[in-house]
């Protein structure tokens, strides 16, 4: 592996000099510590498969699957990210200071994904327990087939929000262009306000009023195949 500069507590990896393989290999071997990744220049697969409570800061834009399958680590991207940010994350925290491309948080089982800007289409697709907080808006088909977890959108949601939803919970502050098949608006009760408050606090979006959000979930009408519902499939 190429040489890395090691200041007192933070290891710096300059991706204009070292490879993505160098970076991920070093992160997989580390059990603790802080890492500073510079000059990512949109490289794919940065900080994937981490399995330790590392603190990773990426200065710049990242490509596809940044922080994919993350466990335990905190990854902060000071830039935008490509497709599938934090896909299948199990635990830990991933924060994107800019915008995230489509399928952010796809199939993620746990942890917290915060996108401070906008997230594109299919944000939270097939989510399985993750918490996703988006500071801006999300694109069409977000939370498609969402099974578990919470998606909180501080801006607007695009077409077909929550299409074919299972048990994932969705909160949107702004306008929802349309709801997908079997997704309905539901009453905001006390526990849901608490949900929203908890997610806003976790994301450090403390200047937003939880009461401004509306809740969406599955009508559970498509849980069993019924020929009378064939037009909804």
């Amino acid at each position, binding site marked *: 592996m190429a040489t890395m500069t090691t200041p007192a507590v933070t290891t710096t990896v300059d991706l204009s000099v070292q490879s*993505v*393989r160098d970076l991920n290999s070093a992160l997989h071997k580390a059990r603790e510590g802080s890492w500073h990744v510079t000059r990512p220049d949109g490289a794919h697969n940065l900080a994937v498969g981490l399995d330790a409570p590392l603190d990773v800061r990426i200065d710049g834009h990242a490509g596809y*699957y940044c922080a994919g399958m993350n466990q335990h680590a905190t990854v902060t991207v000071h830039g935008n990210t490509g497709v599938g940010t934090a*896909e299948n994350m199990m635990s830990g925290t991933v924060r994107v200071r800019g915008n995230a491309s489509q399928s952010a948080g*796809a199939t993620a089982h746990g942890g917290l994904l915060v996108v401070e800007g906008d997230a594109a289409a299919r944000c939270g697709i097939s989510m399985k327990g993750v918490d996703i907080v988006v500071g801006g808006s999300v694109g069409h088909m977000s939370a498609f087939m969402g099974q578990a977890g919470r998606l909180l959108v501080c801006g607007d949601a695009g077409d077909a929000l929550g299409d074919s939803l*299972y048990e994932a919970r969705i909160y949107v502050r702004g306008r929802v262009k349309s709801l997908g098949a079997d997704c309905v608006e539901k009453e905001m009760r006390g526990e849901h306000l608490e949900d929203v408050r908890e997610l806003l606090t976790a994301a450090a979006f403390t200047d937003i009023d939880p009461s401004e959000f509306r809740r969406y979930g599955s009508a559970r009408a498509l849980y069993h195949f019924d*020929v009378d519902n064939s037009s909804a499939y």
Partner: protein
Amino acid sequence: MYDDPSARGLRESATFDRATIHAIQRAAETGVYDIRGWGAKRRLPHFDDLLFLGASMSRYPLEGYRERCGTDVVLGDRHATFPLHLDTPVTIAGMSFGALSGRAKEALGRGASDAGTSTTTGDGGMTPEERGQSKHLVYQYLPSRYGMNPDDLRKADAIEVVLGQGAKPGGGGMLLGQKITERVAGMRTLPVGVDQRSACRHPDWTGPDDLEIKIRELREITDWEKPVYVKIGATRTYYDVKLAAKAGADVIVVDGMQGGTAATQDVFIEHVGIPTLAALPQAVRALQEEGLHRKVQLIVSGGIRSGADVAKCMALGADAVAIGTAALIALGDNHPKWEAEYRELGSAAGYYDDFQAGRDPAGISTQDEELAARLDPVEGGRRLANYLRVMTMEAQTIARACGKAHLHHLEPEDLVALTIEASAMARVPLAGTDWIPGAGR
């Protein structure tokens, strides 16, 4: 007893045969299409339509029981640090826990390990039973990502990115509510008892350019240690194989339309996809043109039943085969000893395909604990290992007769076709002629 109507001179319609009439009547009564397991049941051009040319004057055979005929295969040495080294090219195809019982998965692992080959998870994640009993375990990476997690990814011996399967290329999966028990639901993060749908497209990539990045992600997560397979249902096989190879696959799995499923619409199984025999030569040609034949290994599945089928696949250019339906039969599926219970379910031994219903008398395609207890995983594993050994020995017998010291030395030149269709698909001459329909165009 019913009489035989044809003996009275009555004529059955070839177009509206009894199965067709029954299907129309069933649709008219229920208003729902038929969902079933198994693969295509219709007659298709298949490996039965090929024959080997044993050695005689112009070729020297090898001595049976004396001269060595190798059967080992290495899968995934293109990029992976730890490719799979298998003793036989007959592997076990992906079948899910959920579709099958935990004991059936354990039996598959036991049998495969005993015979020195690999087994494969399915939609629904990796069970401890299967991991524990499988020396070589391929972990499927499916659109649903049910049960997918990096810990199991690291425990796997290889990763198989599934784009589709032969029984339903272009379709997602389904597991009906009666099989979604608490354990199955927990592994898939779903409510108990729902009719579960598995997505037909991956949620975070579309097309070969994305797949290349996805494969690199899986390699990065697992430190480039494990082979990455790509599995496709046989349709536009020539192009799909080229794209999969270019995307970086170490191994490509092509599943023909005879490949089985646990639950799919009958109309889908019988009318979408192409036969295994038609797909295999396309896949080989695609790899040859890319200079990747034998570098990217090719596994073929869909209707593989015997050592003859294995040898024919090898001769046409496959590196290995995978069996699913045949493995379940070896475990005890469709065994005559359950005839009375098959009849109670409206079926018969040899015909039973309601794997979706979860009432399998043989205790294989079920989550019912009482039924599942009928399958002893140790005995099931023994039966599967026996069957795998027989297939391997049968393939060796044929290879020796063709003068080949390894199954991979078999070649298309060793084959002829019995029918014009098989000749055109397999690109080997019609028996007794030097004619291959369509050759030279």
